[in-house]
């Protein structure tokens, strides 16, 4: 049994690099990523209530709202943040389609789009719509975001 009763070292693989961080048992992944030790501020705190998706990162390739998961839960798992995308096709598509205005929601949408593009065999229009409903854009760039995701998935098919 894993017992985690006080701040202690947790091992994670972040953007393909093994990392060790000190975390509290009640610390969310969002907080750990953005903290001084990792400094990965791409995942944004929006609502911190599971509603907006600005904090979305990938855990073992699956999109997760990092405000809704404890760091302790994802110990030894693979985390991908927007800093780890490094010129992924979805990033170029967002630029080409001007799929952002203020940009606060962008990293969350990029992570969703990137995860979808890793499974293009299953990324039909219904699935893309369903996934994209998980995130909110206050500046309402929805059409451009959907276009960027569609283009990325089609180009990888």
């Amino acid at each position, binding site marked *: 049994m894993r017992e985690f009763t006080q701040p202690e070292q947790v091992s994670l693989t972040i953007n393909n690099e093994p990392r060790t961080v000190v975390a509290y048992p009640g610390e969310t992944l969002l907080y750990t990523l953005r903290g001084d030790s990792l400094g990965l501020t791409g995942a944004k705190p929006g609502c911190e209530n599971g509603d907006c998706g600005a904090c979305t990162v990938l855990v073992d390739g699956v999109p997760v709202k990092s405000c809704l*998961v404890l760091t302790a839960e994802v110990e030894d798992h693979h985390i991908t943040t927007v800093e780890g995308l490094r010129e992924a096709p979805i990033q170029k598509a967002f630029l080409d389609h001007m799929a952002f205005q203020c940009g606060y929601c962008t990293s969350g949408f990029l992570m969703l789009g990137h995860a979808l593009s890793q499974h293009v065999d299953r990324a039909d229009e219904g699935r893309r719509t369903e996934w994209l*409903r998980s995130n909110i854009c206050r500046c309402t760039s929805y059409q451009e975001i959907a276009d960027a995701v569609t283009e990325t998935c089609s180009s990888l098919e």
Partner: protein
Amino acid sequence: MLPFDIEYYRPDTIEEAVKLYRRLRENNQEPVFYGGGTELLTRARLQDVHYDAVIDLKNIPEVRIHGQKGDWLEFGAGLRLTDLADQNLWPLLTATADRIADHTTRGQITLGGNLLSTIPYREISLPFLLMDEAEALIATDNGIERRPMADLTSDSFIKPGEFLVSVRVNGGEAKGVAYRSHKMTRQDWIDYPLVTVAVIKRPDGSIRAAFSGWAGFPFVSSEVNRILSDTSRSPRRRAQQAVSHMPVKALEDLHGRREYREFVTEYTLAQILDELEDD
């Protein structure tokens, strides 16, 4: 970050989890069983719940069970709602799961967490409430106990220190029905329900319906089922009668006024009955 300190435990066996809960209580701590955490973490942030230890059940093999064994379809309490949809063992369960929250959050919400949620909806319970043969396997101090899913909303279903291991339904019964599952929200596609209705038509033609959002708990009513099954009346008339014979009054809250809930429920039921006539 939670606004209070907690301890985190991830037991590997059912016995460890049951004993751990007892030990923490003996130390005057307030432990909670932890599924996906979507409710425990958001409610803690709003400071309307307090606990000082979480017992994460997801590493216990029996809690991750997912498949068919003999006549039974078995679903571990730690399965995510997206696991249910991906494997699609029971299409009615998938249809109901697929309308809860949004896709990313469904990848975090567990079956057990939604069934035993402290908020009123517990939408994933509806398919189970419609079955004759649906039972829960509960971990207790005395080992695993089986309890009927029909008792889900009663106080005796699960007691402090006990946790849900898995749920199982008779596969023949579950798959041998025509079904519809509709969620009606006030405005947005993703929201808590004004009303979610799951309806089955059994091989003998009888109809059963289960409701979430109408009241502070999910329910089925034998009187409502009797009315819905009376094919001497039109679907519209049956839907009207069903709504006026609900066992509790419709809620009146942020999501909608009572009259609006009644209207939406009647409309939805009539549409479903119409569709099921042809199935």
